């Protein structure tokens, strides 16, 4: 049968997300947030989620709406500080012990997710050694440099945003929109990509940045270029 991974709505693409799922959310520095998918996930209402997102509190990402809705019990992130004087919803729940936080250096974060998608169960890195974030990790020296052992991160569902998607599931991003999207798609059982535009034809082979094999559903949601 001809492959067509396009679905009409974010809600359709996200039907059946289970309580307790590990959900990865792309986006960094204002680019690549899958906000239409995050809205649909919030509306569908699974609970006990683990969120893997670079920031738990970026004001331009709707990640915080899942947290405010009480759907999240664990966050793995490199940034979890609200910008205002008042505590963010994340900070309040974290302080109250309702959300567990694993704070990870951003490069270990991206590398661990990549490892999850690439079949690497664990790797050594000097980043984090000698810091609070490296505490309780196994330490080993390579060429005189102490390193910590970091394990892969995998997930059940990746929510990413691209610019253009095709019916095969190929995705093209716009500039820095790419950030964590590629790695997260490789590391999750199911990947849903929201895109500005879903095309009938195929994205030319040399322009594909995320190959079709990593994408299960493509949802066109419009939005600015």
């Amino acid at each position, binding site marked *: 049968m001809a492959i067509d991974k396009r679905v009409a709505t974010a809600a359709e693409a996200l039907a059946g997300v289970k309580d307790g799922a590990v959900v990865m959310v792309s986006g*960094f*520095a*204002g*680019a*690549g947030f899958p906000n239409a998918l995050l809205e649909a996930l919030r509306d569908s209402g699974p609970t006990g989620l683990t969120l893997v997102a*670079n920031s*738990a*509190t970026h004001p*331009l990402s709707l990640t915080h709406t899942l947290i405010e809705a009480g759907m999240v019990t664990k966050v793995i992130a*490199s*940034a*979890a*500080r*609200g910008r205002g004087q008042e*505590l*963010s919803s*994340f*900070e309040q729940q*974290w*302080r109250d012990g309702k959300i567990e*936080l694993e*704070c*990870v*250096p*951003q*490069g*270990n974060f*991206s*590398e661990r*997710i*990549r490892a999850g998608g690439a079949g690497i169960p664990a790797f050594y*890195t*000097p*980043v*984090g*050694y*000698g*810091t*609070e*974030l490296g505490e309780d990790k196994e330490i080993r020296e390579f060429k005189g440099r102490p390193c910590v052992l970091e394990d892969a991160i995998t997930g059940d569902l990746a929510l990413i945003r691209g*610019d253009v998607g095709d019916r095969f599931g190929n995705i093209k*991003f*716009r*500039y*820095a*929109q*790419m*950030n*964590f*999207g*590629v*790695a997260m798609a490789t590391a999750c059982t199911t990947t849903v990509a929201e895109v500005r535009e879903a095309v009938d034809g195929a994205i030319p082979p040399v322009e594909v*940045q995320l190959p079709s094999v990593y994408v299960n559903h493509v949802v066109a949601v419009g939005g*600015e*270029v």
Partner: protein
Amino acid sequence: MSALNRSQMAWRAAQDLPDGSVVNLGLGMPVWVSNYLPVDRDIFFQSENGILGVGPQADEDSQDRNIVDAGSRRVTLREGASVVDSVNSFAMIRGGHINVTILGAFEVASNGDLANWDARVPSKGPLVGGAMDLAVGAKATWILMQFNTKDGAPRLLKTCTLPLTAPHCVKRIYTDIAVVDVTPDGFVAREILATVGTDELRSRTGTAIAIAPDCQALNAPEISL
């Protein structure tokens, strides 16, 4: 002259960036460094979100939400720029391909230990971002910060009191009153503001600081903030 203002501090650090180098500038004051490059330097600025070749901030009418730096500022791409995803951006940072990173700091110890990621604000979530990756991965880590805290406490210490970003990583510190190298023998002042004597410098430092035999006067042109 009086203590350097923040623009002048950024100017001073900019003068030392090698021609042809690849440089990552931290959030806050460090990003100002790119405004004050000598005209004979052709430098590529890298940003953690995957841009190699960050240009000036974008005009109001040429902004693109997907051309941003790690601080979410809408920027431009310089000639020869390229864009990669977060995995490859941090591979670039962690693999030793960045010549210099200029970061802010709370404290630096005389053995090069850096504390710049967590000031321990009660109930606020942690935010490490790419700080640890940059401090460990760049070939040279330079610090741009006020010599003392707002309360007059020293930031150059024998041992950091705040959580470490990375051990033994800082090579040079640019401040409002001095330029200080971190050497195997501890802090060595390379430039001191003419109006600040060596006794005052020592009194404002939390541990021993040597004065280089060829120590110069710290100077910067008039630049308004």
